[in-house]
């Protein structure tokens, strides 16, 4: 059946529309977008293999696997984008741009030392950027995001508006990314958009 094709659909496809929202005067306090085209996988060190896994990740990708709530990686020499985000004890969320069959690739590369589970579709990833990003997040996230306490590269697994999320800071703008379980993305959005409205925010479809 040639006319049947599996067009992917972003988690927030039917709620995100480019434009300016909330308070309309002045420059927007933050910009928001969904990063829909990413590949994700859970990586769990096999029992007693965390050291070996770290070495493998280092040799395979040149990335120092973080053992604390941080993320590491970035643009690889081959031009691809890959990061490992701490996601619990000896556990990471690997995030790549433009990868195909990412879980298979990881299994191939790391499978001896790690268990790999595809999560590419399990999380929606939201990016927030702008001077008011911190204040908007503070309306639901109970961790200290002050620059002295939370820096670019830092990661937190926490809760926002009754939803478990994973949050990391990308840069000092500040820019944050939040991973939210896909089925809950709209509820998170309802809270986040309400929280950001006071500052005025812009939704963009691309970063």
């Amino acid at each position, binding site marked *: *059946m040639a*006319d*049947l*094709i*599996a*067009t*992917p*659909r*972003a*988690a927030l496809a*039917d709620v995100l529309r480019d434009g300016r929202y*909330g*308070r309309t005067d002045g420059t927007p306090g933050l910009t928001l977008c969904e990063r*829909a085209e990413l590949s994700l996988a*859970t990586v*769990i060190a*096999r*029992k*007693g293999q965390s050291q070996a896994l770290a070495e493998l990740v280092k040799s395979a990708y040149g990335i120092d696997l973080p053992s604390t709530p941080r993320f590491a990686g970035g643009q690889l020499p081959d031009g691809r984008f890959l990061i490992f985000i701490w996601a619990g004890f000896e*556990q990471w969320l690997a995030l790549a741009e433009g990868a195909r*069959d990412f879980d298979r690739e990881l299994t191939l590369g790391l499978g001896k030392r790690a*268990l790999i*589970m*595809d*999560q*590419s*579709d*399990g*999380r929606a990833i939201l990016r927030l950027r702008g001077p008011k990003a911190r204040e908007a997040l*503070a*309306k*639901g*996230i*109970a*961790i*200290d995001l*002050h620059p*002295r*306490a939370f820096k670019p590269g830092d990661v937190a697994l926490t809760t926002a*508006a*009754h*939803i478990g999320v994973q949050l990391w800071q990308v840069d000092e703008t500040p820019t944050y990314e939040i991973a939210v*379980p*896909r*089925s*809950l993305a*709209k*509820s*998170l959005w*309802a*809270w986040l958009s*309400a*929280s950001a*409205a*006071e500052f005025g925010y812009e939704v963009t479809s691309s970063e």
Partner: protein
Amino acid sequence: MTTTSANVGETLSRSETSTPTAGVPQPARLASGGLIDRARSLPFSFDGRKLFGHPGDTLASALVANGVKLVGRSFKYHRPRGILSAGPEEPSALVELRSGARREPNTRATSIELFDGLEAASQNRWPSLAFDLMAAGSVFSPFLAAGFYYKTFMWPASFWEKVYEPLIRRAAGLGRAPEGIDPDHYEKAHAFCDVLVIGSGAAGLMAALSAARSGARVILCEEDFRLGGRLLCERGLIGGEAAPEFVQRIEAELRSFPDVRVMTRTTLFGTYDHGTYGALERVNDHIALPPPFEPRQRAWRIVAKRCVLTAGAIERPLVFGNNDRPGVMLAGAVRSYLNRFAARPGRRAVVFANNDDAASVAVDLHAAGVEVAALVDPRPETKPSSVALAEKTGARLIAGGVVTGAIGGPAVRAVEVREANGRSSRVACDVVAMSGGFSPNLHLATHLGGRPVWDETIAGFVPGDTPRGMAAAGAARGTYDLADCLAAGAKAGAEAADAVGFQTRPSAVPQVEPQSAAVTPLWRVRGHKGKAFIDFQNDVTDKDIELAEREGFRSVEHLKRYTTLGMATDQGKTANVNGLAVMAEITERSIPQTGVTTFRPPFTPVAIGALAGHARGKEHRPTRFTPSHEWAHAQGAVFVETGLWLRAQYFPQEGDRSWFDACNREVIAVRSRVGVCDVSTLGKIDIQGADAPEFLERVYCNSWKSLPVGKVRYGVMLREDGFVFDDGTTARLGPDHYLMTTTTANAAAVMQHLDFCHQVLWPDLDVGLVSVTEQWAQYAIAGPKSRELLEAIVDREHDISNAALPYMACSEVTVLGGLRARLFRISFSGELAYELGVPCRHGDAVIRALMKAGQSLGVAPYGLEALNVMRVEKGHAAGGELNGQTTAQDLGFSRLMAMGKDFIGRAMSQRSALLDPDRQVLVGVKPLDPSARLSAGAHFVPLDVPVNPENDDGHTTSVAFSPSLNVSIGLGLLKRGRERMGERLRAVDALRGTDIRVEVCPNCFLDPEGARLRG
């Protein structure tokens, strides 16, 4: 009540922008001074009367400026009440603010910031404030003594709910609740800091400044809309500056630090564990309506490493006759109205105070042009300071005297004074400034259980053990001299910063005139005339305390509960110490021996909505949407909440008269053709690792090691107490790779349980677990034509024939030209059926593709209703049967249990009561009359015996109308059920008035051999 005609000299200056009404005089407004903006007038209404005030006013100060004295009626006796204080401790001046759905009953006029168009109304009166018929209740006041309810209203017995209670309820409760849904919104927020400073008086400002200069992250919380605390009503100089200027300068410096957050209109309401504090920011209560996108209030959770409590002190009333008459005020409040608000509470004042600080209010009165008729100083020895005050103000000094009673109905006209020599006289006056000393405002230091300690020199309680990380300073610590307060604040702020790693020293403090705070306690005036109030809001008098003592309610906690002392909205801020001191006096115990009651959060009442924040209406809890939601929505599906999920319940089509028709149609479609249902909500846990098989052995009661790769097995999980926890299928995807499914309801609980088993019980196992529920869109494709349908979308190279993929097999496939998917040949419906898992982002496309491809096969989507009907037809246990009280044996799984291995719940499942042959077990039932409709929750009773607990043999747990059998069928739990096949019973549903004869049958109604699902 009449107000004196306006004095032209004192009317306000005209506003530049001159609104038409701006010139309306405020008869008691001072011509100059104060922290109000005379350039602008704010119209407001009180009980429908149009009045004007200025920015900078509170409702109370604007009422004072307008000469309004009578503001409300009291709780029990409906006595006229005015304004007692100028702060959050106010017990008397409570009003209904705003109207309709925004009405806020019991709002303290002293804490309401005046705004343009403010509407307020007095409460607890009928028909009007001045003429309150309920005040007639005063005649009965002898019967209304403390605790009178407990002795009365018992005769006749039946009258309580019908007559007495409704009367009491109508009389009680001051204001009226809002009408309709609150139109405003609220939010919550989190803040973190090194040093939290609570209160911005002299001590708080210096504390915040010292900490801020150290580089620490500081939050300064101030309940008022202005920083400064008592400094705002000081007329003296601070280091050569006027006090308000000093405040402004410090505020400016504080605001210049990037890591200092100054929060005004923010009340710290509670101290919680480990440095967590609750605070309420009234973001937009000071204007008529919140602007768009802004909340009305914001509830903060503040986490602070250190905290400095500089919340000041609360002045106490004196206890004399009619001390509640409008016009009788706390001395500090009088000072505040005069100096901060430029409002004159009267023209002729009597000052009655037992301490130097309050007595000095005479000077402020005098300076404002108020005649000070008398300075009544109860202290036995004549104080030189009082003599000087009297000289300066021209007041008559009545040293060693007391006010025994206030005279006047709706407002004070005079006071009766008893002099030291016992002679009584009357002094005409329209305002009484009274003070019985101060109580440090230590509530927040006691919320974690710290007990206050009595300090004789200040005649007040001071904080004892403060919560870890908190220090009190200034008046909150019992330090009353201004210079000392400044210094103590600076020191506490510096120490707090220092303790968390910011080396610093206290900031230098400015020079100020020394003050005296000398006080001699006077807990009540003996031989007073008229009721002497201790708790103004709950109408508790000194007589009530005597009565409580007489009846044995001597412990302060009994005193409180019997008389309701301190239990009103003000929580006895002005009342508690007076009350317990009077009890101490009567029982001849010391005050520390008598003790204090417990302060509890909140410090001042907090709106329920603020603490709920965003979580309201549909946002009360998050909603989980399935991958096919948008598609189903477009089909007109009706959705139903299942836990947090929203699932399609059924898909109505033309011709369906109700859900029932739709459901039957969907069932028939599945049983005769093919249907598709979104089952993504089932929990999915990916389990990998060398010990994964062993792990499954231990968490499931049945055995797992024999399951080959590419196969699926049904599993039952017990709790450690031996009862069934959850069930589901688990597929072996690889030698050490499994995918477990759980019920929708228990998905999270099972994940937590497995993490427990893995991390706590058996950390040695080589196994990793991750929930992948969110990753996979999972569709059940069921019905005789399901394979045909699948063949249309599964890519050619995958063989899904019966031979290649038999019942209970699973396989990785690709669909729609290369999309990776998982196919499980499992069946809940009892038909030939599959579950197809595809990555979620393709879920939408795949459901559309299935529907399109299935058109020629007559495919129908089916919802939860049809799903449930089919599972009842097949006799599968679900919610009603997996109720946490059933055992595996009850549900017919005895043979599944592999007793030879260790598994969670093994031992406890063998307890005698769990093996009792009398237990109720899972059966099916069918009505004898095929047209009868069963209901769930009906009880089984044998025929021909009475319906009583002894004959309760069980109940129906799930029922359904089976369109396949054309009869209502049910699952149930029946005592010794397996032995009773074919027996006839009654299913009695007394609640719904049905009593149906049923026949017991096996729980599987359709295709018990399973021929269809193997087809």
